[in-house]
């Protein structure tokens, strides 16, 4: 928020809540990175860390939600202030879901480790790394565009969502090939399908974040809107 309110207290509350959203965003971003790392390294400790972080993420969501209700009740915000708060409500719900996806991945790793699979089978875990890099990059860019309230950067995130989807499709084909070649991998490959899907969802959540940012700045809800119409809004 560039312009100042008459009430500096209100300004402080808004910037405070934005900082906490970014804190939550940073936390889930590192959660996703760690979750995939725990998979590529087959490292149970990192997986445990991811699950521990989930509690913090959940707590942040509830706290930010409480702050939102408080500001709405006490300040009766309008126009861009109101849009900011509504968008933050959507953003934190999406971030919390990203945290859930990371936790889901961490639990898969724990299961794979528990049955001792990694030592016996060769799995395409490094392809997952690539998909995850794309998805976390999307998430980071979405959070950056939130910090700067930059709708052009948000539009880029929406445009690049397809890359993650394509990577997911490629990985699916690869996993199917693995399963056909060696039926012993079926059970663990299915686990990997879930992880790949979780990572793909992270990309979707980044796109939702980007749409919320466009809503804050431009005042137009671009969810479920064709790309050409979204571009018109930014122009």
């Amino acid at each position, binding site marked *: 928020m560039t*312009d*100042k*309110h*008459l*009430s500096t207290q*209100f300004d402080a509350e808004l910037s405070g809540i934005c900082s906490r959203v970014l804190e939550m965003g940073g936390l889930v971003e590192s959660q996703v990175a760690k979750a995939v790392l725990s998979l590529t390294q087959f490292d149970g400790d990192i997986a445990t860390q991811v699950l521990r972080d989930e509690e913090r993420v959940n707590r942040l969501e509830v706290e930010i939600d409480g702050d939102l209700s408080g500001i709405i009740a006490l300040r*009766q*915000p*309008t*126009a*861009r*202030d*109101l*849009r900011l708060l509504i968008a933050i409500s959507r953003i934190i719900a999406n971030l919390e879901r990203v945290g859930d996806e990371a936790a889901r991945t961490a639990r898969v790793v724990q299961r794979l480790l528990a049955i001792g699979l990694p030592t016996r089978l060769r799995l395409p875990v490094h392809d997952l790394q690539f998909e995850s890099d794309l998805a976390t990059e999307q998430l980071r860019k979405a959070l950056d565009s939130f910090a700067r309230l930059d709708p052009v950067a948000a539009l880029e995130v929406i445009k690049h969502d397809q890359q993650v989807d394509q990577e997911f499709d490629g990985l699916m084909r690869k996993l199917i090939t693995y399963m056909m070649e060696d039926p012993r991998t079926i059970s663990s490959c299915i686990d990997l399908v879930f992880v790949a899907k979780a990572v793909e969802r992270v990309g979707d959540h980044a796109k939702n974040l980007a749409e919320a940012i466009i809503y804050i700045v431009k*005042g*137009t809800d671009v969810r479920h809107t064709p790309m050409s119409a979204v571009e018109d809004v930014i122009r």
Partner: protein
Amino acid sequence: MVSTVTLPKNVPELKAQARELDFYYGAYKALKSISMPIYANKVTALIGPSGCGKSTFLRCFNRMHDLYPGHRYDGSIQLLPDEIDILSPEVDPIEVRMRISMVFQKPNPFPKSIYENVAYGLRVRGERRRSFLDDKVEEALRGAALWNEVKDRLDELAVNLSGGQQQRLCIARALATDPEMILFDEPTSALDPIATGSIEELVSEIKRKVTVLIVTHNMQQAARVSDFVAYMYLGDLVEFGETKEIFMKPKRKETEDYITGRFG
């Protein structure tokens, strides 16, 4: 300044239309070329900081400014459907005030009984039939949601009513002459939140019968009661649009700064 006027998708019937309206207090130009529609059976709220011209604009609608020398109008306010120009010197201001009533900031009942306050406008018109007056007084008091509280003491002095009741009495008095439009000049600024709530409720009710133009300093009140909002600043109309649009996504940065409290 060029105003941003956003008309609704389904344009309601027009009740009045201001066209390039200028107003001068002597040499001082208080309104600068205001053009905006007033829609029938809708509530239009005028908002803006003190001195922006919203009350001046409101008072043009019933020729209040005529009461003082040196005041001058330019442009027109057309009243529909008969297309008369309210501001034209040929139009009788008394007739205008019969058709367009006003409710003021502070309740201003006459030092008469409740009954006589409401019947006053009709008596001025020459109405003498008691049964007709009785019916009209009851209808107006019901319309102002005051009937049940005062029906057993219509002969008591109006000034003994509470502030909120007095204001509703003034609304009943305004309704009694069957006006087409009612002007409200900050009608709740002297009332407590409960009385304010009942007046706001009333404004939303009476728009079924009359067109309402309201000046308010309370932005939340404008948001609650109005269908359309006009934001004015230093005698200019900055933006006119549907209330929801103005409060969610105003087109002008000046409007946004004002309604979000960034106005300095």
